[in-house]
């Protein structure tokens, strides 16, 4: 991929070269330590749809780069060659009104280019959009909320939030993930650049997208369609895991919540306040649907849709005053006493 990029950048003139050079930024931004899982370049695809897109994109970049070079050269030449000089003596140049042959030439050539670009594009549109769902595919329903993601695995009976776990797809044993995209409020857009192009989540308008990641790791993304105040912190991460790891994750998620007698006080705070109106904890009376499911909260690396690390201090701050982390978040500050706050945080921390 990188060599292809470097080669095309040589052909495409400084402007396109600049774009491509910078598209490699994450590669040197992360340094010798290797992948930090922070890359979101559209030119480092890890999945078939993203790869098809990157390939056709490079093709289009090369064609447009060549057009740019030709037309820019013409423009530069005419500006330099035909600049007015003091020796002109105020005489007017030959008055030329046009030429049908030239007009025809620069009409027909662009039409041919458009035909080529269109055919190359149509192929990828069809390949990505009309791909049939194979038998081994994983089905996930992604539901957009202001400002977080709900993920439901209907065949596995799992509900989670913000951090999507999917299996890696081996070429000889493909296990792609097919997402059904829904929204309960405003428009959102699911965008993890290294895995696939973005597709919107629109209320009353179910959409579909798929990805078949070919390497494991955490892939970052975020909501791309403006959805309200905290659109910026509707972050998204996709953990791509090997079959064994994914199986273990599924197994853990399918269990009901851990019951720990040591945090009964916290659980009571949770269930006697409005917390349980919005949040569900599997195996308990709490079955709210407005907020993220907390059954396995501690299995997630972040809270508040990726806005903060899932640490004791952040959890406490988030429950005490969500606006401190994410102003405009729809979670209210519950105004708990310090004792209740500590108790409920302790309860949360048992939900592995």
């Amino acid at each position, binding site marked *: 991929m990188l060599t292809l990029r470097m080669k095309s950048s040589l052909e495409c003139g400084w402007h396109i070269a600049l774009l491509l050079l910078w598209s490699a930024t994450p590669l040197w931004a992360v340094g010798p330590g290797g992948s930090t899982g922070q890359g979101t370049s559209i030119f480092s695809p890890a999945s078939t749809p993203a790869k098809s897109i990157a390939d056709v994109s490079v093709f289009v970049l090369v064609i447009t780069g060549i057009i740019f070079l030709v037309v820019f050269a013409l*423009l530069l030449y005419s500006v330099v060659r035909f600049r007015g000089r003091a020796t002109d003596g105020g005489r007017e140049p030959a008055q030329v009104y*046009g030429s049908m042959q030239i007009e025809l030439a620069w009409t027909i050539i662009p039409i041919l280019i458009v035909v080529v670009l269109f055919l190359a594009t149509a192929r990828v549109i069809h390949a990505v959009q009309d791909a049939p769902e194979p038998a081994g595919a994983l089905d996930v329903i992604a539901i957009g909320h202001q400002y977080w993601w709900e993920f439901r695995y209907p065949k596995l009976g799992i509900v989670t939030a913000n951090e999507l776990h999917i299996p890696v797809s081996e070429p000889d044993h493909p296990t792609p993930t097919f997402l059904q995209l829904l929204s309960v409020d405003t428009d959102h857009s699911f965008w993890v650049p290294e895995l696939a192009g973005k597709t919107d989540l629109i209320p009353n308008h179910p959409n579909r997208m798929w990805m078949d990641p070919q390497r494991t790791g955490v892939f970052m993304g975020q909501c791309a369609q403006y959805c309200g105040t905290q659109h910026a912190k509707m972050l998204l991460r996709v953990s791509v895991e090997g079959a064994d790891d994914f199986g273990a994750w599924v197994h853990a998620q399918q269990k009901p919540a851990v019951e720990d007698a040591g945090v009964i006080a916290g659980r009571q705070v949770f269930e006697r306040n409005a917390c349980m109106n919005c949040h569900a904890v599997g195996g308990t009376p709490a079955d709210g649907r407005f907020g993220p499911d907390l059954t396995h909260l501690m299995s997630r690396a972040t809270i508040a849709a990726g806005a903060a690390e899932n640490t004791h201090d952040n959890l406490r701050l988030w429950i005490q005053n969500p606006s401190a982390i994410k102003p405009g978040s729809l979670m209210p500050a519950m105004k708990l006493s310090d004792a209740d706050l500590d108790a409920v945080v302790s309860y949360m921390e048992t939900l592995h």
Partner: protein
Amino acid sequence: MSSNVITVPVGQTEARPWVDELHQWLTTVDHKRLGILYIVSALLFLVIGGVEALIIRIQLMHSHNNFVSPEVFNRMFTMHGTTMIFFVAMPVLFGFANYLVPLMIGARDMAFPRLNAFSFWLSFLGGLLLYFSFLGGSGLYGAGNAPDVGWWSYAPLGARAFSPGHSSDYWTLALLVSGFGSIGTAINIIATILCLRCPGMKLNRMPLLAWLNLVMAGMVLLAITPLSAAQIMLLIDRYLGGHFFDTQAGGSAVLWMHFFWIFGHPEVYILIIPCFAFMSEIIPVFSRKPIFGYPVMVAATVCIAFVSMSVWAHHMFTIGMNSYANSFFTLTTMAVGVPTGIKIFNWIGTMWGGRIQFKTAMLFSIAFLFQFLIAGLTGIMMACSPFDWQLSLSYFVVAHFHYVIVGGILFALFGAFYYWYPKMTGRMLSERLGQWHFWLFLIGFHLTFDVMHIPGILGMPRRIYTYEPGRGWDTLNLIVSIGAFIQAVAILVFVANLIVSYFKGAKAGNDPWDAWTLEWSVSSPPPAYNFATVPTVSSRRPLWDLKHPEDPDSRYE
């Protein structure tokens, strides 16, 4: 033609009390004064919209910045977009059309002078309504706020459930009211061009500026009407219990998108076609050659107008249209590049073999050609819908359309200002300040908008008030912000030039550029009713014929 110059009686130039002068401006139906009112009001909004852009850029200078709250940031990008499109770009272009079209076709005014005044005041009132939202946005709730739903106000974000209070109502009403103004002006331009051309000015002898404004006005009629309809439907949803876009009650969010973009894409061409018109007047004069391929330029413009009516859903490649729809809109969008390319080639053909004079107006025109070329090519990239699934809604798109609107439209407009300011005021703009303005703005522009493509490729979505560190976006955003401030300085130089030159600029005379169209045959500024006797023309360049009786254009047409 010299007999056409009206000598202004001494009495008319005496200073009047300022109240009289103000009254004259407020009640004027003169196309030239209304043109200037349009332009001045647009410049006012340009400064306001520019300040909003700077606030956005300060906030995005580095990750996790806290310069403004998310609420304020969201208002800023909503107001910036709405202001720049509806209250800067459209009015300033209408202003030039108003001022120039009658002069260039040898008419004494627009066809409907009072409709003209009405249209201007409607559009200005629309702008005031939009900005009143800062004070009265939440109505009874007390403190005001501006709309924060984005300049497309996608459903259902614009519904009452998600946008309570009145802030987005001001947005709706502002667009509705100014939309009626636009429709009035479009009717006026069409009627003027079709009915008031001077003797001898057949359609195929009209200056290209008149032709292109005719096409633009036709597009306004087709594009603004669905927008107005959609705004009325939105009001019905919000206050009369309608469910057009109310997804909670079975309405359709996608319907709003179609309504908005069937306005929104032709709108881009409504803005750029008058700029093509400026280029088609300025480039020939400073290349000292007639426009290359006049009939092809007209045909290409009409072709752009037609095709651009069928490309709107390329703004919607990510909403889950089926593969046939995506293919169709890919094809039409790529196809619109063909006539657009033809225009660029013809401008280069015009310069080819000429003797180019690098006045400030021409510098801006050459920069326009360069930047519009790039904007067109990034447009082709996004016409490729799979590429767009990645680039759409990212900073790449933001860079692309600013390349069109700033690199294209604004550069062309600056060219038009330097070219026609002498006609409008009787004074030349300072070339020295003009050079400063041009080079500062060019550097600022490229620093901002070249670099802005890259965070989009690196996965940075638009409309986010802050971003995470470690994505490789920080440095790039800092450079983009620095460029924005350089552009702001350039705009200050420009405004200073406008003001200083008004009082101290060199006298322009009738025809400072040795140009060929009718507006340069009358005094600067032109007298009321323009022409003492209506001129008669026998070619596309009547003043060329006059200056070169030995070799007039009329011999070849």
